[in-house]
């Protein structure tokens, strides 16, 4: 009985000590985990991203497969291969009484719209971005602020006003009118993007090129343009996609079916009939996606390639 207490105490002490040791060990383990955590983290994030993108990927896959199959088992699994759905490529489509125009002029319209928007947007916004970034002139801040305001307006809000404007300048029911509207509404944003890229090119680099023997044009061509590439890639991708995917303005301002684009064509395939030919629809939709994919593949490299080196602060 006498020495029980001290023993107990001793035991208790030992208990504390071993607990501390354990805690220390655990801390070490945690620290050890932290090292491997990034790899585990990587795996987890890969899994999460895969799970999230599976539905998107599957729906595209379904779209692609169903465009080539005559029948889908429960609308999910393709059963037989056919090119019938792709017949719009070589013959006009006939649906009941309505004869659709051939898809090629419509594709051409869409391409024309997309490329025109891209071309003019890149041209105008690189020039205006340069001016806003490099020159100090009266009203510069105001212009910059106004571009932001204009960008903040949703295009839908302007629909009726634009309709009147187009009507007045006799550009209603023309692709040129739609182009003009698209370009005008998107220049503010792309100008701001490009301005950001110009801001990142130091004056020193530009001045160096002058001393090295460039005139203004050569400086632009050999020094500024290469450094601006990612910016140009970004805005041309955005503007191409927005031109290619434009629906609302075409739907509102274009009445002649020959002047429509793929977006409204696709809509008309869905909208006009009680019985929708899903095979045809998916084939047209797949066809509609091809240029977007191509464009993205070509610009992706430039988009990811950002090089602002030569500087160590």
């Amino acid at each position, binding site marked *: 009985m006498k020495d029980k207490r001290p023993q107990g105490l001793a035991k208790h002490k030992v208990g504390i000590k071993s607990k501390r040791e354990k805690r220390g060990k655990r801390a070490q383990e945690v620290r050890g985990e932290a090292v491997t955590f990034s790899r585990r983290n990587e795996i987890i994030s890969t899994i999460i991203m895969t799970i999230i993108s599976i539905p998107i990927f599957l729906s595209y896959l379904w779209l692609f497969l169903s465009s080539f199959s005559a029948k889908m088992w429960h609308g999910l699994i393709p059963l037989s291969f056919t090119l019938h759905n792709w017949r719009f490529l070589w013959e006009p489509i006939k649906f009941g009484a309505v004869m659709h125009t051939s898809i090629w002029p419509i594709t051409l319209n869409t391409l024309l719209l997309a490329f025109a928007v891209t071309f003019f947007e890149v041209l105008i916004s690189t020039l205006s971005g340069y001016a806003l970034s490099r020159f100090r002139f009266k009203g510069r801040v105001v212009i910059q602020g106004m571009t932001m305001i204009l960008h903040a307006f949703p295009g839908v809000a302007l629909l009726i006003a634009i309709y009147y404007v187009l009507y007045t300048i006799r550009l209603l029911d023309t692709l040129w009118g739609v182009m003009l509207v698209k370009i005008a509404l998107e220049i503010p944003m792309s100008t701001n993007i490009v301005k950001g890229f110009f801001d990142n090119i130091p004056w020193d680099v530009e001045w160096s090129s*002058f*001393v090295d023997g460039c005139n203004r044009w050569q400086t632009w061509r050999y020094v500024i343009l290469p450094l601006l590439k990612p910016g140009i890639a970004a805005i041309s991708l955005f503007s191409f996609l927005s031109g290619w995917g434009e629906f609302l303005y075409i739907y509102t301002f274009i009445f002649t079916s020959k002047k429509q684009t793929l977006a409204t064509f696709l809509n008309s395939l869905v909208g006009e009939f009680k019985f929708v030919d899903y095979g045809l629809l998916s084939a047209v939709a797949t066809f509609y996606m091809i240029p977007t994919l191509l464009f993205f593949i070509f610009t992706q490299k430039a988009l990811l390639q950002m090089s602002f080196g030569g*500087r*160590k602060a």
Partner: protein
Amino acid sequence: MKVLLDNITKIFGRIIAVNNLNLEIDDGKLVVLLGPSGCGKSTTLLMIAGIYRPTEGEIWFGDKVVNDLPPRDRKIGLVFQSYALYPHMTVFENIAFPLRLKKENKEEINRKVREISEFLEINELLERKPIQLSGGQQQRVAVARALVKSPDILLLDEPLSNLDAKLRVMMRSELKKMQMRLGITTIFVTHDQSEAMTVADKIAVIKNGVLQQYSSSDELYDLPRNIFVATFIGSPPMNIIEGSIQYEGGNLFFLNPDVRFSLPKDLEFVLKQKRNTKDVLFGVRPEDVNISMKETTQDSISWIIDMVEMMGRELLVTLSRGKTILKTLIDREHSPSIGDRVNIEFSGRVFLFDKESGKNLLCEE
């Protein structure tokens, strides 16, 4: 090539960046434009480069006015503090760029780039991109790019400021060596006075866009024209004490409530011609103040040691007497301690500046 700045003024909006600057830079010399940041030295350099246009005045290269000549026709090489290498080009392409613009043939370009990169010891790096280089390597590439077209004038805008301290000291002597070997007229902008003193044939000290003094390092150190130059040149800076001068019994004294120094005879002669000056600033460099434990002489009665700082070879000792503070550099063998009372002696030159204008009273107008 000789460079002459004739009454150069540059105005940005309401700010006068450079005010009526006159400067003559002899052929083959290295001249440093020295001053605190924002003093207009870089603006001056950019005007010489042709990037800024002087608001007034003329810039002469040799016997030609170059005001209207664009940078590319001035036959200059320029190195920026940031080096301003083209990030999308390799080192080779960076150096070859000026030659390509001159449409020289490929073999010639290859030969020249190889030559200059061997000269600057960067021939191993030619395939790399600027971002893969260290600061010192980037600096060499920038120098190579500036020199490859054999310019008449080399302009360097704070070329060493982005390097670490050790590399900076090494590169400045290398730059000087290179400049002497090539015999190229060089204009070097810096805010670092010790850098300026080591590389320059002549230094132009600029403050607020106005030239303060243009002379050799020695003269700048021994005979600063005004208080700004006196305190800007030399490290640690010159001690400045406010007070007045007085004649007593044919001797000249500097006085303030705390101190009373008798001034050397040769000062007396100069000052006699400016008898009306009374309020002055007294200046003495820390290395010209000696301390001793000896008995007091008449005008160096005991000072108290406030602080002792280790500077390596020497000690920087802060002395005080009343409100007057004096710093001195002494040998380490003295081993003074804080609180000690010591006496001082001036072993070198002392300076007197006019309190109002800041002018050195010992310089002729």
